């Protein structure tokens, strides 16, 4: 009985591993080998998407409320005035996994995206912009009065 239980647990674990492997999807190939969405530290998550030698920039504007009541739905807009903006990636530093999502900006598309994110607690939100092959960063603190994770 114990034996079969162990087997079941093992096969379950194997399945999870396969799912994780399958979770690394094609556009992610440009990101990194392991899934950057599972990384728990901000610096490592930034590195996993290629963000190194970051230059703070005033040309990146994060539009978001200073205080958000509901962490489950926090509107965040990022506008990059940097010429040749190729991608915009959002991070919430204090989320269990800081990487929120990445937006690819082909030429002809304006360097500006808006979405809504979940935030577990008050945190800095970072926007990482790749422009002309270089990485730039901006941050903004958003205060949360009600967390959006767990619950």
């Amino acid at each position: 009985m114990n034996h079969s239980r162990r087997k079941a647990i093992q096969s379950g674990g194997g399945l999870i591993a396969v799912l994780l492997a399958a979770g690394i999807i094609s556009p992610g190939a440009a990101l990194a080998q392991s899934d950057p969405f599972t990384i728990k530290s901000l610096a490592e998550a930034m590195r996993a998407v290629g963000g190194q030698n970051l230059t703070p920039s005033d040309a990146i504007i994060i539009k978001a409320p200073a205080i958000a009541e509901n962490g489950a739905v926090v509107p965040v807009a990022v506008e990059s005035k940097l010429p040749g903006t190729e991608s915009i990636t959002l991070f919430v530093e204090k989320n269990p996994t800081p990487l929120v999502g990445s937006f690819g900006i082909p030429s002809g598309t304006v360097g500006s995206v808006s979405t809504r994110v979940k935030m577990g607690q008050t945190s800095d939100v970072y926007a990482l912009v790749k422009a002309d092959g270089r990485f730039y960063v901006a941050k903004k603190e958003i205060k949360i009065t009600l967390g959006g994770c767990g619950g």
Partner: protein
Amino acid sequence: MADPMRIRAVARDGVVNVRVLMSHEMETGQRKDASGKLVPAHFIRNVTASHQGKTVLTALWGPAVAKNPYLEFEFKGGQKGDKVLVTWEDNKGEKRSDEGVIN
């Protein structure tokens, strides 16, 4: 099949503003249900928007994008009457594509 997306696209001064509202649970995989079991993660991974065959935006998301995701972006070169095609795929392989007409 998930519910259709709501797509609003408006052309103004040569720039098309696109707003998309998707219908998706965006389950993080960290929440527990009433019996204390973890609810498995279920979220949109990939979003692609295209205009006349040309990709105008791609997005790669994790579970921290809010439930029923909202996405707004702008691209140049679209005309009134053109269509914008938006496709998403989630971590379980479900897909959904919808079109919006530029106003």
